[in-house]
């Protein structure tokens, strides 16, 4: 295989787990890219992709829990992972501070995901070598 210079990647996931293939395709890419020596700048969840960051995801015991699998990968590789705040609040994904701000009864953001604005994505577009989008199925 031809050797190439290491690149930095941002992965944008906008398809939800269990209704699209987007999160697992993105994870397969992330593992392959890091194994090949490339860098992951950030994972950014947008649109329905924010459902990946719900700590309440409870997969049947004989299926993969994509939230836990992604969280393990993010922790192992120390990859920053942002959940778009506007997408998250609309879809009921809240961290502790948003729970308090909107006086909801619970928070459910899985660790190590963080809630922030599209500014993180803009920064990635400006600085990463490549920004890849993993979309929901048509």
């Amino acid at each position, binding site marked *: 295989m031809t050797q190439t210079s290491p690149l930095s990647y941002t992965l944008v996931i*906008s398809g939800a787990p269990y209704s699209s293939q987007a999160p697992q395709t993105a994870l397969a890419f992330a593992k392959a890219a890091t194994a090949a020596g490339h860098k992951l700048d950030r994972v950014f969840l*947008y*649109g329905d992709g924010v459902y990946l960051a719900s700590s309440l995801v409870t997969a049947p015991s004989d299926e993969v829990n994509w939230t836990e699998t992604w969280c393990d990968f993010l922790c192992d590789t120390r990859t920053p992972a942002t959940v778009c705040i*506007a*997408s998250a609040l*609309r879809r009921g994904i809240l961290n502790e501070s948003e729970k308090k701000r909107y006086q909801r009864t619970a928070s459910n953001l899985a660790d190590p995901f963080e809630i922030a*604005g*599209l*500014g993180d*994505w*803009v920064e990635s*577009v*400006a600085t990463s070598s490549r*920004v890849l*989008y993993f*979309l929901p199925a048509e």
Partner: protein
Amino acid sequence: MNVLIVIDRAPYGDWSGRESLDMAFSLAAFDKPVALLFRGAGINWLRHGQLPEDIGQKSGERNLAAAPIFGVSDLLADQQAASDYRLTLDQLLPAASLVEVRPELYRQYDHVISL
């Protein structure tokens, strides 16, 4: 860094168009050059006189009318899509311009995004 965001789905049917607009406005807020291209059923975002209140949604027309003020450089309307929907330029928002979508158009941008 020059970004083109493509919207090819009809307004109000799903949230991808609205979230594409959010991306465009965010880029503009950070002074990054950004344009929007409306293709296929997405051309209907540019129609005058949208009245989505009866289905409980906010008008995208109002957002788009303000786009140039907020720094979105172009609202590009695919002329083939306009023709398919029998829309003429005077039926579209004043800031819209008709373009022929060819590979050269995409090559003007560093990033092309379509949700």
